[in-house]
């Protein structure tokens, strides 16, 4: 048996033994365990599952063991992921520190910074949020204005960030700030970590079309930030941010399946809400055609993820493929939600009412949520610009 097969068996046995049955049914939004100083658990099983995974280092399987990770390479980590998926094991811990900041600190941080931040992320002790966008700087992120002035032993930060997801619940924020107002746009920016408890930091929630207010405007009013919180070199924050953005896009491409939504698949919903005719076809041929177009595109995207992975494993990676995944993944997720809305008809339209069951209510919430997918983490239009210029080499 190959090393990988062996590993698969071990992983499988461990998961079977350690993942409580209640942690193997699809997770709802409320049941997600988010990192943080004041973590709460929806159940004792969720706590147990989190602690067991944490102790294995499998909240962050690919990070170094000495920093709280699992020390797995990509192939082994993929096996863990596959086995978890097969058994339906829930993601034990959610946090932007895991998905975005951690990889950047591992790449750009000093030893002290790694020691300070990485183990806490791995153990879910700190919840992170991302402070990039500003009212005047979205797609054109490099025009950001939040200032960090050098005051000798600290930076003095003033300005505002917007669309900061979960800023009101986070312990720390990683920010892009302007440290040299005279330099060219990209060259005067630094990457700074700020404790949300610091004096002068405040947040106001913003209500979304889905009715939730998961993002905030974040204000910095004469906030003193220690110099040690600078990641990478002064005025070189843009390269840190770019490397981090790669992780975000990958996440966004994959997140489609993880968004809040009903428990049924579009096909199951179609059979229930529309029904089949005697030939076994959905009775609404228009919706059937929309559904099959989505299903076929979805499969093609899945196969492309797989091809990209295999190419990396075989050392023939085509670096252009990951660049397309954010765009197609999020656009197709939006299409799925549109199809689902069409399938449920007016049963998808209830906002809150005993008349509608949870799946019906979640259908429109998922649909509304999906609209953000092609905006967050770089809009679809910006992704197309990147493909046109970087992949196809088209001129400016």
């Amino acid at each position, binding site marked *: 048996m190959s090393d990988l097969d062996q590993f698969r068996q071990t992983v499988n046995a461990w998961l079977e033994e350690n993942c409580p049955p209640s942690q193997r049914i699809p997770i709802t939004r409320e049941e997600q365990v988010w990192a943080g100083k004041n973590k709460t658990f929806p159940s004792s099983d969720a706590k147990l599952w989190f602690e067991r995974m944490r102790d294995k280092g499998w909240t962050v399987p690919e990070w170094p063991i000495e920093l709280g990770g699992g020390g797995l390479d990509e192939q082994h980590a993929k096996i863990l992921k596959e086995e978890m998926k097969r058994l339906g094991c829930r993601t034990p811990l959610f946090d932007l520190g895991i998905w975005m900041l951690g990889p950047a600190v591992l790449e750009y941080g000093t030893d002290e910074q790694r020691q300070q931040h990485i183990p806490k992320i791995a153990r879910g002790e700190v919840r992170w949020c991302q402070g990039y966008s500003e009212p005047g700087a979205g797609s054109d992120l490099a025009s950001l204005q939040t200032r960090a002035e050098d005051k000798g032993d600290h930076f003095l930060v003033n300005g505002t960030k917007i669309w900061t997801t979960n800023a009101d619940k986070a312990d720390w924020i990683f920010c892009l700030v302007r440290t040299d107002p005279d330099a060219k746009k990209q060259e005067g920016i630094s990457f700074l970590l700020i404790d949300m408890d610091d004096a002068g930091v405040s947040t106001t929630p913003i209500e979304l079309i889905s009715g939730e207010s998961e993002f905030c405007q974040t204000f910095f009013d004469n906030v003193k930030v220690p110099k040690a919180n600078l990641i990478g070199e002064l005025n070189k924050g843009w390269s840190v941010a770019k490397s981090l953005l790669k992780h975000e896009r990958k996440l966004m491409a994959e997140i489609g399946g993880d968004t809040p939504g009903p428990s049924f698949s579009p096909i199951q919903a179609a059979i229930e809400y529309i029904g089949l005719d005697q030939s076994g*076809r959905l009775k609404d041929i228009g919706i059937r055609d929309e559904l099959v177009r989505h299903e076929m595109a979805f499969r093609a995207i899945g196969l492309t993820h797989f091809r990209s992975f295999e190419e990396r494993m075989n050392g023939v990676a085509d670096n252009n493929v990951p660049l397309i995944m954010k765009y197609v993944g999020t656009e197709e997720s939006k299409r799925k939600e549109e199809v689902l809305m069409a399938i449920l008809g007016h049963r998808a339209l209830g906002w809150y009412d005993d008349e509608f069951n949870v799946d019906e209510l979640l259908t429109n919430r998922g649909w509304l949520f999906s609209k953000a997918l092609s905006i967050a983490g770089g809009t679809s239009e910006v992704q197309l610009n990147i493909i046109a210029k970087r992949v196809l080499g088209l001129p400016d």
Partner: protein
Amino acid sequence: MTLVLNEEQRLLKDTAKDFLNSAMPVSALRQLRDKKDSLGYSREHWQQMVELGWASMVLPEAYDGLDFGYMGLGAVIEESGRTLAASPLFSTVVLCSTIIVEGGNEEQKSILLPRIAAGDLNMALALEESPHHQPSGFTTTAIADGDDFIIQGEKLFVLDGHSAEQLIVATQLETGVGLFIVDANSTGISRRRHHMIDSRNVATISFDQVRVKASALIANAKRGQDILNTAMDYGRVCIAAEMLGGAIECFERTVAYLKERDQFGVKIGSFQALQHRAAKMFIELELSKSVVLDALSAIDDKRADLPQLASLAKARLNDVFELVTNEAVQMHGGIGVTDELEIGFFLKRSRSATQILGNSGFHRDRYASLCGY
């Protein structure tokens, strides 16, 4: 399941590319068209393809084949799509030899397959009877008459039907589908070759009381339909591979033009309206590559989901080849609608290829049904 070519397959693809570029560029098809070539392909080029092993590549070793698999042949066919190379490879090797390998008896296999492998025998599948692909319920009948069968009917859109020496005819028997091997010059057969938009070779073949021996029957009833379905799925995947090659070639030529043509004092490739459309085509092509590779590997691994993959690949490539050829014409402007520019050849081939073994509507309907809705 694998979605990467191995060393050998990559080598094969490169060799195919070199050969096709030097011997059979798009201008070779233009020549065949302009001189109204009676065969519609070059015998000499076909002989070279045979020498490169393309005719024997997927046949079993026991019958002089190389047993190299469809991942390899698909790579070759994809390359042939880039230069629109005309040859009997698809009709003879992919469609007909599959039926013989899957359904033929020992005698049929040992007589026919080595000749196909050696490039000595061209065959065509006589299948369609209406303006649209229809894979079952034939009106061409085969009625038992003593030890023989009498075939009656008319077959349309028979690929390479004008030049094949042997035909496989899909007929309706009392028990269901009957697949017969018939000498193309038998009494009662008349063939009319047609000149098509893509300059490739298609014929109408009439069967008027054509008498064949019972030994000409390859398979009948449910088995006959199953074998035909398998061959059609192999065909769908391979034609999708050809279309992928054509679409990639057309796309690359278009992107090159965007970087070359000046208007308003800048390269037209700097216009965002064109950039985004080009980026979307790139994305569609990347997804298409994955789908075609997986479908080819489904053939090699004899996977049960081959029918789904074949429909996925054919529907997708129908749509993507149409998109890319339309955009290619548009983005070239006036020169795009001239016969001088080769883009027109791809545009025309795209629409012909779409009609081979099912348009997108057919395959979406089939895919949905296969998935239970």
